[in-house]
């Protein structure tokens, strides 16, 4: 299955992926109109420490602890992708506590969680963080 991977060597720490992720979640066609004056809640986040930068998002684990811990069945595995049904999420945040990568975060309204679903709801065929990474540090590959 294709997953999002980050080549740390090429990650510049520009944080553009976060903004494209946040933009994708809106229904707007213009990023300035969509995000100006707003705090963003991206599903990918860039970790920075000195000269080291890398973006982190959901690993779509084969045996995900988040899915095991979900008490309402909001999280499930569909075709290898860890999907979230926000309607069923009650915001207990068990998944946030159990994810070893810190890849799940509270959604903007605070009542449910949000996580990367590989932009499956868009028709691009490739996640927006991958498509818009200026240095090809974020890739969408099948590494087995």
């Amino acid at each position, binding site marked *: 299955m294709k997953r999002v991977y980050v080549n740390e*060597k*090429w990650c*510049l*720490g*520009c*944080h*553009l992926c*976060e*903004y*494209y992720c946040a*933009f994708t979640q809106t229904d707007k066609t*213009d*990023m*300035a109109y969509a*995000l*100006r*004056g*707003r705090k963003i809640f991206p599903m990918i986040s860039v970790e920075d420490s000195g*000269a080291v930068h890398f973006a982190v998002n959901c690993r779509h684990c084969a045996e995900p602890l988040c899915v095991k811990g979900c008490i309402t069945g909001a999280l499930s595995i569909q075709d290898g992708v860890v999907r979230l049904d926000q309607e069923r999420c009650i915001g207990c945040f068990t998944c946030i506590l159990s994810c070893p990568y810190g890849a799940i975060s509270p959604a903007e309204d605070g009542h449910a969680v949000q996580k990367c679903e590989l932009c499956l709801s868009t028709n691009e065929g490739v996640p927006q963080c991958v498509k*818009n990474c*200026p*240095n*090809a*540090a974020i890739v969408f590959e099948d590494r087995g």
Partner: protein
Amino acid sequence: MAAFDFYPDYEVVRNLDRCIVCRVCERQCANGVHSCLEEKNVMLADDSQCVDCQRCVLLCPTRALKIVKSDNTYKQNDNWGKKAINELIIQASTGSVLLSSMGNPETYPIYFDKLVINASQVTNPSIDPLREPMETRVYLGAKPAAVERDDRGRIKNNLPPQLKLSMPMMFSAMSYGSISYNAHESLARAAAELGIYYNTGEGGLHEDFYRYGANTIVQVASGRFGVHKDYLNAGSAIEIKMGQGAKPGIGGHLPGRKIVADVSRTRMTPEGADAISPAPHHDIYSIEDLSQLVYSLKEATEYKKPVIVKIAAVHNVAAIASGIARSGADIISIDGFRGGTGAAPTRIRDNVGIPIELALASVDSRLRNEGIRDRVSVVVSGGIRSSADVVKAIALGADCVYLGTAALLALGCHLCRACQAGKCNWGIATQELELVKRLNPDIGYKRLINLMRAWKHEIEEMMGGMGINSIESLKGNRLMLRGVGLNEKELEVLGVKHAGQ
């Protein structure tokens, strides 16, 4: 004195209706132009630090930024222009020699733009390169003057070593040190895939790149940095650098801060110490001395590799080229005054040397008149901006061109001409690891390949239009060129007729 020396030349214009304060501009500017006033959630800019490299403009996801030339003006004066005044003010303030980078940007005539190319109509057929074979392969090196046979009448192989190129273009000498590891890797990989050559420049060859040796030209310059037996044998040809178009008559100076661990090991110079290339080669004061170095290098490589001698285009370039052709060199490389550099004194870059078009035409004519044109191949550089320039250079008599600035542009350079500062925001002319990583060679080498393939197609189209199906038939074919708006003397030097003749 005043609070500032002068108002900045370029201004950062931010469209606040479009700025989402993502701070990408701030993170990507090595010059510290952008900053965020967090309590107001608004971005600020310090125009005085901006070099107009366009990095922030092109990474801004909402296109909220642009850089404009300041309209702040001194009182109109056609003699004392803004540039002259500002440069003088800098010198009055610092007492220093002015430094610049990349090629001469001044308003000298560009002869390539005053030459037009011929095409076939009615009386001779043009060729469609998509349907018929089109030969762009080039061999560089000395060609034998005559066929020789042994006592049984069989042809003797008396062909000196040659460089074989799939198209008449190579990447010119840019040292590891002046440009980054990733820039070198991009050039090396692209050259290997395209079947052409790149040039190490005078900084030695990084051990990782020995595997691209079949597509490498190794350079020996006056500082002899990184030169040893394995290095000489690693490449397919050796280039002796006598001069550089951007700074004829002077040497080089790579500042110590660019001599980081890897560069120091490759150059065989101490880390952090300035690497200074002397103006002359201290063992070359004549053509005879040059000949000794040519043959020393040939001895060291068992006469298996062609030797190139690179000179800057200067006033008596034709006579110098004639001498070089007689020195035993296989290839002469001539660098015009538009050629780039990682750092040169501004006055030298902008005032010394001659245009490559004129130098090339006079060298080719001189070598032909002396009957020694076959003894050497001629490679030109310094101002080749497009495939049309390549075609014109070949028609003027070049065998091949070197591309430096054009290759860097493909890698992201936007000609901000601040290489000497070592803070290249595009990861090219820098050794700072944070900046070097901005050039991903996986992207860079593909862009170089795209550029070269596009130019090759265009060259084939232009050749086809002329009814020529081989680069060899275009070489020195000055009847394929006409001048527009040139005077008698210029036409005479270029050896072309005026349009309409």
